[in-house]
């Protein structure tokens, strides 16, 4: 009893969680984009972040990674400061803000995901090239390996960046809308890849817009709109009430009913 009182449990983020935040507030100007957000994503799970456009989903991922400054709050990745575990995280931004005219090929982009392991100066051996190619194959992009990335379609580009994330062999995958603009067959293929990552014990946190597939694809969900509306296992928190609160009544009641019933 006496020992327990030494630890202030209110102040300890769950060290087992691949991503835990508390009181996270982020602002681009005067108005906050995220306000006092708490979240604890479970290890080894597929977690979704759901909310309307402008809810702060991308902001959440960027702030968690320390890519944008936070006004206040705490972020822990695997119980540690994010700067100390960067090699365990792979991040795929929403519609990568890269230069599409850059002189680089699909395979080259995937190899960038291996820089962390190769180091900044060591030669890229054939073994790494084979791994990069295998990652491209996993997302069905093997035949486009030598294409300049600007000459791929939007969905193909998205898959190349997913392949780069796979190459990183991370323990935590942060994916900002991995299914945006990909066709149904590819979406299925990507989900299979993600599920196999999960089977390997990796954790996935993905921003997801298609409410109808949330119960199918994910175990855990965070509903967000500036604040956290709800967070927990999909079965428990993916409810009509929470959804209508998240979308501010912009979803029809029947729409929500079908969504939540499907998942049950």
């Amino acid at each position, binding site marked *: 009893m006496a020992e327990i009182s030494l630890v202030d449990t209110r102040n300890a983020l769950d060290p087992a969680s691949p991503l835990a935040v508390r009181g996270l507030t982020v602002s681009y100007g005067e108005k906050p984009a995220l306000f006092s957000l708490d979240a604890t994503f479970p290890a080894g799970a597929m977690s979704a972040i759901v909310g309307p456009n402008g809810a702060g989903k991308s902001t959440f991922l960027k702030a968690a*990674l320390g*890519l944008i400054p936070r006004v206040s709050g705490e972020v822990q990745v695997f119980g540690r400061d994010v*700067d100390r575990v*960067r*090699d365990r*995280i792979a*991040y795929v*931004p929403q519609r*990568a*803000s*890269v*230069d599409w*005219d*850059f*002189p*680089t*090929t699909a395979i*080259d*982009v995937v190899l*960038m995901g291996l*820089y*962390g392991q190769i180091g*900044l*100066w060591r030669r890229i051996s054939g073994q790494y090239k084979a791994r990069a190619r295998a990652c491209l194959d996993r997302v069905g992009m093997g035949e486009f*390996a*030598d*294409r*300049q990335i*600007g*000459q791929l379609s939007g969905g193909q580009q998205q898959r190349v960046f997913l392949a*780069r994330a796979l190459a990183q062999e991370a323990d935590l995958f942060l994916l900002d809308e991995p299914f945006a603009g990909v066709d149904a067959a590819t979406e299925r293929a990507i989900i299979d890849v993600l599920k196999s990552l999960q089977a390997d014990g990796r954790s996935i946190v993905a921003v997801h817009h298609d409410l109808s597939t949330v119960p199918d694809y994910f175990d855990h969900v965070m509903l967000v709109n500036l604040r956290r509306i709800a967070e927990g296992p999909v079965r428990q928190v993916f409810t009509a009430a929470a959804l209508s609160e998240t979308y501010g009544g912009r979803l029809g009641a029947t729409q929500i009913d079908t969504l939540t019933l499907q998942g049950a």
Partner: protein
Amino acid sequence: MGAEFVQFSLTPILIGIFAAIACALPGNFLILRRQALIGDAISHVVLPGIVVAFLVTGTTATGPMLLGAAGAALVAVVLIETVRRLGKIEPGAAMGVVFTALFAGGVLLLEQSDTSSVHLDVEHALMGNLEQLIWLRADGWGSLVDPVALAALPPELPRMAIVAVIIMVLTVLFWRPLKLTSFDEGFARAIGLPVNVIALGLVATAAAAAVAAFDAVGSIIVIAMFICPPAAARLMTNRLSMQVAWSIAFAVLSAVLGYVLAGYGPIWLGAAGSVSAAGMVAAISGVILLLACLFGPARGRVGVAAGGEAP
């Protein structure tokens, strides 16, 4: 090609080559970052830096000049960030404001202070004095191994050579960070690369190249070499390493061809005298860029079937 060539053409050509390479290398990354004009801007900001360094130290030695220019570049970068944040305007506009103001300040300083006796005049700044960087002590190829003759080399040659070699080494050493931060800054940040330090390092390197070259060959070559060879090289390939290799080839070609044409071209055409080597080098690089625009295999977005299909 005998003694006369070694005496009057070898050193200017070599200096031109080193200057072209030193500028073209960072230029590759600057154009990919849509910062091509920063080369132009740096060669403007270099002016006040050099003038201040001269006023403070009273010499035109490279050390103080480099420090002055690098200092000015740093001041400029800080000012740009400040203007951009406070004014909430785009980087290009902030750059324009800061560099124009600094350049104007440099010109004012030049006029106010009595630097006319030194070779800091504006025409020199523009055109350099490539033709005058000759090696009078040389009397043939044998001079290349003659310590007495070597000691009388124009100091611009070893200076420019050292800067070019340092820049080549830096480019190789920081290849992956440069490539990564130029292509995908967000990803570079996410894997923990010090993106801002690398960006600053690139600008500082470009500034060092600019000031060393500016002193030897004038700012026309500096501006042209930052942009033309890399831009032409981009149209030749869809691989960064090949682009950089092409840019070096184009830079060397411009330097050699430009110097030779400036010296002998008018004579071949039957006219007397010669034209400015700096101007000709820049013009040749422009012609190469034009040809690359018309025939480069990786013109991608302009016109016919994209050139980047798998080979």
